[in-house]
């Protein structure tokens, strides 16, 4: 479904991604793990067209997408839930969700479905429905994260990119969000690329994973295998780290 071939991305003089290649198949959940600055966020932003690759190819359903601007990428069916949620704080919950469906307001048939999709998002996250007319900026971090995911879903993505959805959230909220991701894949067949600091939770949910270090893929494999890998255990699943899912 999505294939990155020898992607290089730089910010000014910083060479953030070095020959990164990876792929996702339809209906898979794939996770990217790695330390801060390993290039996980950059991969998502390169796919989304926010920080275009300087070389390499990105194919989405066999179609090259590496030089398209962010709005065209969304139109093709790739939505990103950005790091730090980035909801439109002075807009209401409902308006934020409408913005998620922005491109679909252009076509008459799609427009009719938008209302129904909003109800679906409310079914996934009932708390958003309670707060539909509240301004997004006044909600808790967990609620904002739910809204950010809901907003991305309003575009009806075939591929959902998530950047650190558990960052700074209470364990119960994290559980709820991971439950929804699992449900999305099961019910809608949404393909998911998940970037996480919480490697254990991510590997538990994912089918496969890639381990990044300083802009390079150093390890890849089935999630279960990675979980048993000594190197991954040492670096990312260290016992002194209190993992949310163990509580």
């Amino acid at each position, binding site marked *: 479904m999505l294939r990155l071939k020898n992607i290089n991305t730089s910010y000014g003089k910083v060479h953030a991604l070095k020959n990164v290649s990876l792929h996702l198949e339809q209906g898979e959940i794939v996770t990217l793990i790695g330390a801060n600055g390993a290039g996980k966020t950059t991969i998502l932003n390169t796919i*989304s*067209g*926010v920080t275009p690759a300087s070389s390499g190819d990105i194919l989405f359903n066999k179609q090259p997408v590496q030089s398209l*601007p*962010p*709005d065209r990428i*969304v*139109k093709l069916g790739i*939505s*990103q839930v*950005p790091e730090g949620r*980035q*909801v*439109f*704080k*002075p*807009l209401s919950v409902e*308006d934020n969700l*409408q*913005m*998620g469906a*922005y*491109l679909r*307001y252009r076509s008459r048939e799609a427009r009719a479905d938008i209302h129904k999709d909003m109800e679906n998002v409310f079914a996934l996250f009932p708390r958003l429905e309670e707060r539909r007319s509240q301004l997004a*900026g*006044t*909600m*808790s*971090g967990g609620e904002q994260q739910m809204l950010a995911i809901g*907003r*991305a879903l*309003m*575009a009806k993505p075939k591929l959902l990119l998530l950047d650190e959805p558990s960052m700074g959230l209470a364990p119960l909220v994290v559980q709820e969000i991971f439950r929804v991701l699992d449900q999305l894949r099961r019910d809608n067949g949404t393909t998911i690329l998940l970037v996480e600091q919480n490697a254990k939770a991510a590997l538990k949910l994912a089918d496969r994973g890639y381990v990044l270090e300083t802009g390079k893929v150093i390890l890849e494999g089935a999630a279960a295998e990675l979980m048993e890998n000594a190197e991954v255990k040492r670096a990312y699943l260290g016992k002194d780290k209190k993992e949310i899912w163990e509580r």
Partner: protein
Amino acid sequence: MQFDQLLQYAVSGLSTGAIYALIGIGFSIIYNATGIINFAQGEFVMLGGLFTLTFLDLLKLPVWAAVPCAVAASTLAGLVFERLAIRPLRQPTPINLVIITIGGSILIRGLAMLFWGKDTHSIPSFSGDDPIAIGGATILPQHLWILGITMVIVAANRFYFYHTISGKAMRACSYNPRAAGLVGIDVRRMVLFSFVISSAMGAVAGIIVAPLTMTAYDVGIMLGLKGFCAAIIGGMSSGIATVVGGLILGVLESLGAGLVSSGYKDAIAFIILLLLLFLRPQGLFGKRESERV
């Protein structure tokens, strides 16, 4: 000092204030969408008035046709300005943008001088010049046009930004351009559109005020600065706060000119501007930002 006289100053102050408000909202819309203070805003006010003159005199159009044509022509100029001067900028640092918009305004003013000359021109009022008496004051029909058109535009603006998808998308771009791109909003198109809206509003302001104050190639400087002042009072809001800012400014100016000396008319606006920038840079009604993260 008689009440009638005060009323008279207040009434004429309100109509000039409405003009400042329209220009100020133009500043705010571009500022909110892009972070740019468009110092060329005043030139679109000037273009509105002078294009109307051309359509009336040269093409012999009636007023009801000349005005929309002039708005369209000025809007087109705003669109071209964004495409040629703002968008190509590789590194849009604030100082670059300030210099570019000031340069753009000098260029537009220069072209206008070549095309329309240095003379001051007058435009006929929309519906005659017979004064209407209210209380002890008299107002001109054009004053009513100004207040009415301003109210309609402010209401339309409010509707657009709060109740249409496109308007909400423009607000989304101003709050978080990166996230706006990630939901599929074409941010560059929204920037272009913000220039279109504010040059149209500037042009309308220039057209409706021209019958009262005359117009010339250089009216944009002063009107632009006054509009900027209104926007600062309103805390760069594109809504009611800037309208109130414009009205306060217009009335104070008019009272100052009437009660003290008309020589201080412009000074009053700039003293207010400086005081606000020193004491309340967030605007008269603004709160300091506090949000949950």
